[in-house]
C-alpha cells in the first residue's frame, strides 16, 4: 500500500491516520494553506504551519489547531511529518511525510518566485511528489513580477491623474497582500475591502513590513478615495462600483495571461499575476524534487501527465477536489 492514497475524504496517510487538505470532515487534518478549497471546516484537529493557524481561525472560526514551524518535525505512529515553504500565500506549505525512509511530498499550491510577502518556496527531495498543475500548459509563462507591479502602478497613476478611482480585484489571502506590498503608496491611499482588511491584519502579525492600508467603511468621503487604489475580492467588485464611480477596474490573476480579456470578467484591465507556478516553474520544481513518481492533481492534469511521461517521468493522474479553474483562489 502506498504511503499516501486517495480516499473519498481526501489524500490519506493510513500509517499516521491523517488526511491532507481533506474535503470531508476527518478527525485529523494536515493543511497546506488557508484557501477555501484546501482548508474546509468540520475537522477534529487541524495541523498546519504556525502562520497558517491564525488565518485558518479567521476563515473557519474557532477550530482545534496545532501549529508547526517550517522544518519542525512531528512524529505520529512512526511517520515523520514536517511543513516546508510553498511560496503560494502567507503560511502556505508543502507537507513532507516520511515513513521508514520513504518520503512523500504534497505540494498543495506553490510558486517559485519570492513575492516578498510569504516565505519563498524550498525544494524538498522525495520519492513521490504530489504536484498541483493549475497552470500546467506551456502557454502559461509568467513575466517578471516586478514588471507587473510597474504596470499596476502606472495604471493607478493614470487613473489618479484623471480623478478616477482604481479598483483592483484580488483574492483576499495572498494576492491582496502581494499587491499591497508592491504598490507605490506615493500615488495615493490604499483602501481595502473589510474582508481583505482583516486578512491583512492577521498577516501583518507575522509580516510586520506589510504596508498599512485603510479599511473601507461607509463614512469614507470622496476626498479619501479620489486618487485611491481599492483592493477588493472579485466577488465584491460589483457592489463597490456604485460607491466609487467613476472608477476603473482591473483583475490581477494568472488567467489574465491572454490578451483580449478572455477571462477578464467585468474588468477593464487584466494584470497577469499568479500565486501558482507557471509551466517552467512546475517543471523546475518536479525536477528539483528528484521524485521517482509524480502524481499530478488539480489543473491541466491529463496533458501535463502525458507530457511528463513523454519526458520519461513516472507520472500519474490524481483526481482531487481542489479547485483548478478561473474561479479558484489563486
Amino acid at each position, binding site marked *: 500500500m502506498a504511503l499516501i492514497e486517495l480516499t473519498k475524504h481526501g489524500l490519506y496517510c493510513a500509517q499516521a491516520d491523517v488526511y491532507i487538505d481533506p474535503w470531508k470532515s476527518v478527525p485529523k487534518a494536515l493543511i497546506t494553506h488557508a484557501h477555501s478549497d484546501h482548508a474546509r471546516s468540520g475537522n477534529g484537529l487541524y495541523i498546519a504551519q504556525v502562520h497558517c493557524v491564525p488565518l485558518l481561525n479567521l476563515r473557519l472560526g474557532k477550530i482545534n489547531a496545532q501549529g508547526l514551524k517550517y522544518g519542525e518535525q512531528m512524529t505520529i505512529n512512526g511517520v515523520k511529518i514536517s511543513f516546508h515553504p510553498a511560496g503560494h500565500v502567507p503560511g502556505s506549505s508543502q507537507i513532507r511525510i516520511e515513513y521508514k525512509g520513504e518520503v512523500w511530498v504534497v505540494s498543495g499550491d506553490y510558486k517559485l518566485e519570492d513575492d516578498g510577502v510569504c516565505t519563498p518556496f524550498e525544494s524538498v527531495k522525495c520519492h513521490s511528489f504530489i504536484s498541483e498543475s493549475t497552470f500546467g500548459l506551456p502557454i502559461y509563462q509568467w513575466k517578471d513580477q516586478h514588471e507587473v507591479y510597474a504596470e499596476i502602478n502606472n495604471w493607478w497613476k493614470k487613473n489618479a491623474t484623471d480623478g478616477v478611482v482604481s479598483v483592483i480585484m484580488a483574492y483576499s489571502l495572498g494576492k491582496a497582500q502581494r499587491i499591497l506590498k508592491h504598490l507605490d503608496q506615493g500615488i495615493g491611499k490604499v483602501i481595502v475591502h473589510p474582508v481583505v482588511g482583516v486578512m491583512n491584519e492577521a498577516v501583518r502579525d507575522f509580516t510586520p513590513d506589510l504596508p498599512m492600508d485603510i479599511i473601507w467603511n461607509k463614512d469614507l468621503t470622496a476626498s479619501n478615495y479620489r486618487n485611491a487604489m481599492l483592493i477588493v475580492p472579485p466577488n465584491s467588485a460589483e457592489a463597490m462600483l456604485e460607491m466609487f464611480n467613476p472608477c476603473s477596474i482591473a483583475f490581477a490573476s494568472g488567467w489574465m495571461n491572454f490578451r483580449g480579456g478572455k477571462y477578464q470578467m467585468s474588468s477593464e484591465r487584466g494584470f497577469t499575476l499568479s500565486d501558482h507556478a507557471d509551466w517552467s516553474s512546475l517543471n523546475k520544481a518536479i525536477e528539483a524534487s528528484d521524485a521517482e513518481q509524480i502524481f499530478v492533481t488539480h489543473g*491541466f492534469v491529463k496533458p501535463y501527465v502525458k507530457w511528463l511521461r513523454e519526458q520519461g517521468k513516472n507520472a500519474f493522474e490524481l483526481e482531487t477536489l481542489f479547485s483548478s479553474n478561473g474561479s479558484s483562489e489563486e
Partner: protein
Amino acid sequence: MKKFAGLYIELEQESRYSRRVDAIADYFHAVSRDDGAIALSILLGFKNKSIVKKEVLKQLACESAHIQSWMFEECLTHGNNYLDTVSMIVPSGASTQHFSLQESMSWLKTMSALHPDESIQRILIHWPTFSVEERIVFNQMLCGVFKFNVSFDELTEALSRCSRIQKGVVAIRLTQWKPLISSMDDLLTPIDYSEDGAMPESFKTRWEWTSELEGLLNPKNWCAKWLPDGIEVQFIRLNGEVFIWGANNKLFWNRFPELESFFLSVEDNIIVCGTLVGWSNKGVDKVILQKRESKKNITAKTVTDFPVRFIVSEVRRRFANSKESEIVNDEMLNRFLHQINNVDSLFIWNESIIFKSWEDLFAMQSRKRMRGSLGMEIFSISTNEIGVEQTKSYFRRNEPYSLNLILLYVKSGTYNGDKSSEEYTFGIRHESSFIPITRVSSFHNDDERAFIREFVKVNTLEKFGPVRNVNPELVFKISFASIYLNERKKSRVELVNVNVVCRLPHASINDAHQMQDLLNLLSKT
C-alpha cells in the same frame, strides 16, 4: 520593439478614447524619430509581406519548447489565437534584449530575401531575445498579418498632442505621408500655413430657442432649414484632393469614397457644408450611419450595404491659400446644383423654408421624426449667412426639457487640443447631498467661461488631478432632448443632447431642482 509591443498590448486592452490617445502620444514621445516613422507606417495600415507561414512558426515553436504537436493543440484550445499561442509557448531567454523597431523591421526585410532555411535560423536566434509581447508582434509581422487597432482620428489627436501642431494640420499632412518613405520630420515641421486652404471653416454654433425670442424676432426676416440627424461635415476640394472634415478637426480619410470621387470633379477651393446621413428605403436611417462608422475598412461592399447621402446646406468658395471664404454666387450655386443633380441620389439639397409665423414653423418642426431630423434651424434672410453672425442663428428642438442644476465639478482638459478648455459637471440636490447628473464640454459664451474660471479660483473645495470640486452655488438652466433610465449612472438617469441654456445669476441652490423633480420627469417621459 518593446515599447511598440507595449503600445500594441495597451491599445488591445484600452477602449477609452482619451487613454488610447494618451498611450499613442506617450509612445511617440518616448521613441526615436526613426522608430516613430516605422510605427506610424504600421499604424496607418502598412503591412509587410508574409515571410513564413504560421504552420512553420508552430513547428519551430514546438521544437524550441520541446513539446509535441498535440500539446500545441491543447494550448490552442485554451488560448484561441494561433499566433499568440505560438508566441507564448516559446521559452524566453535568460534575459531579453532591447531592439529598436527599426532594427526589427530591418531583420524582416533581410529575412524576406533569404533562403527559407536561413530565415528559420534567424527566427530561432531572435525569438528568445524577445519578451512574449514582442514575439506576439514579431510573429504577426513575420506572417504579414500584423495590424493595429487604431483610428485615424486617434492617431491625429495623439500626434497633435505630442507635436503641439494643430490637429487639422496633422491630419492633412498624414494624408500625404508615405509609409516607410516619409519621415517624422515631414510630418512635424512647424506650421507654415500651407495647409490653410484645406482646413475647415468653423462649425456653426447653434443656440437654443427660447420663448422670449418669439416676441423679439419678426418671422418675416427669417427662413428655416431642416437639421438632419447625421454627421455635420464640410467637403473641401483643393489642389485635386478632397478633404472631409467633421467637427473638432476630425478628418474622415477614405471613409466616404463614393462622395470623394464626386468632389474630385468639382472646382478647386469649393467648400460644401452639410450633413452626412445613413440612408435606407425609409429615408434617413441613423442605424445605417452608425454601422457604416463602425466599419474599420471601407470596401465596395460597405458602400453598398451601408449607403449614405449628403444633405447639402451651403456652398462656399475659399479665397486661394486662405482660411477665408464666402458664400458662392447664384450662378456658381446653380452650376453646383446642376452637377449634384446629375449624380443620382447621392446628394440632397437642403431647401430653405419660408414661414409666416413662428407657429407655422413649430407645426412643421413637429414632423421632424418623419424627416429624420433633429429639428430646424433658422437663419437671417437679410444677411443670407448662417452662422457668420452667430447671434442670428438659432435652433429649436421640439419642446426641450430643462432643469435647473448646480455646478459641482470643473475639469480643465485638452478638448480639441485646447488645454484651456473645460468640462463642467452639473448635479442635482438629493436631501443634503449633490448627485452628478451630466457633463457638458463647452459654453457658447466666452464671458460665461471667464466668469466660471474666476469662480473656480476662489471656490475650489478639493482638487483631483485636473478636476476641481467647487462650492455648490451656481445654478444653471440645462436643456436636453430626452431622458433615459440608466442603472450604471449614480443618478440612474441619463440626459441626451445636453446644452447649457444660461446661468441663473439670481438663483440660489434652493431654486435648483431636486432628485424628485428628475424622477417625476423620468416617469412622465
